[in-house]
């Protein structure tokens, strides 16, 4: 299994980020660990095919996402918040609306309510310094589509996490 990338170094360098990404995608620690193991299990036999070691991180994230999509493909689809409507929500720009504390548990709860097509760009955006172009490559989407989904997902997330909002991020009555 000759390769320019040493397996031990590869795992040490990326396992934490991969696990966190997996956790944010699926929301469960056990599933996140399985996905991380599955990702390295798929990558190690193919390391010799890696032509650009600098791009190994993007490769790992992409494989993990594919493994996640494969895993949830056969599951009953969850009920996700339709983000088509989120674009119509006016994002509050007041300093108060932007100054709230961010609870990681609430972040996960908000992510769980998003369809994967909105959740993944949001995670990658906030996660590991992925550019829009990187995210577009990860998801095989045009960069404009990524930016559009990201804008709606960010608006939703801010609204969801702001104090005084109902379970869908709408202003409490």
């Amino acid at each position, binding site marked *: 299994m000759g390769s320019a990338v040493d397996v031990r170094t590869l795992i040490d360098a990326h396992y934490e980020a991969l696990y*966190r990404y997996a956790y944010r995608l699926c929301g469960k620690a056990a599933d996140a660990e399985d996905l991380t193991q599955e990702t390295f299990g798929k990558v190690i*036999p193919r390391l010799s095919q890696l032509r650009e070691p600098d791009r190994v991180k993007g490769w790992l994230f992409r494989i993990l996402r594919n493994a996640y999509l494969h895993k949830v493909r056969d599951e009953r689809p969850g009920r996700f918040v339709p983000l088509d409507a989120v674009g119509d929500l006016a994002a509050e720009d007041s*300093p108060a609306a932007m100054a709230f504390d*961010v609870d*990681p548990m609430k972040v996960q709860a908000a992510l769980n309510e998003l369809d994967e097509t909105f959740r993944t760009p949001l995670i990658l955006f906030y996660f590991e310094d992925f550019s829009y172009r990187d995210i577009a490559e990860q998801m095989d989407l045009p960069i404009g589509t990524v930016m559009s989904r990201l804008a709606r997902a960010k608006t939703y997330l801010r609204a969801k996490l702001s104090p005084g909002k109902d379970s869908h991020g709408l202003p409490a009555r």
Partner: protein
Amino acid sequence: MDCPHANLLLMFYRPDRPTDLATDDAAALQAHLATCPACAAKLAQQSALDQRLSAAMRNVPVPTGLADRLQDQARSQIRRAWQRTAMKSALAASLLVAVYLGFVAATRPTLDVGQLADAQDTLWQSPDRTATAWLAANGLTNSLPEDFDLNLVTFAGRRDLQGVPTLAMRLDGPGRQTAWVYFLRSTAFDTSKAETGQYTSNVGVKVYRDLPNGWTAVVLYTGNSLTNFLRPPGSAA
């Protein structure tokens, strides 16, 4: 650039990653921010929120021992891969050996003792004709170094000479006397140190160089001379 346009771009703008936007848009936005305190303040608030969201997003405790479990999994995976490779190599080698043995078994000659008996009978009954035919078949007709009595020939073929299969002819004379005539090529032997002489009390050697067709002949014989193996004077060839 006006504020609504700037607000749209701010949604995608990250100060530490200006290349996220097109160069022209990023330059125009930066110019606007330099002159618009409201938009600059909004950017500052948005960046601060993004930093908090980013920190919260990454705030996932990694299970203890996960690295070790992953390393163990990788080690056993690599070990299994090597075992599979070794097994495939062994199978391939076994297959090659089996194919080779099968080839050898399929192509080995069938021993035909009837043909052997016929050849021996022919040699027994007409040694001179058999020897003459053998000499002709091997380009040795004119390379016989002496006028040997071919009726004495009891063997004509290849014989191992110091590990090299060599054309050879045996003549059995009266009184259990034997002569071996070897025909050598210079490519097979260096004969420069081979000399004619009586090497033991029973065995003499004669070396004939520069025979027709480039042959060298070496004759080993028992007794004191070759006379007993030569055609009697006055007999027909």
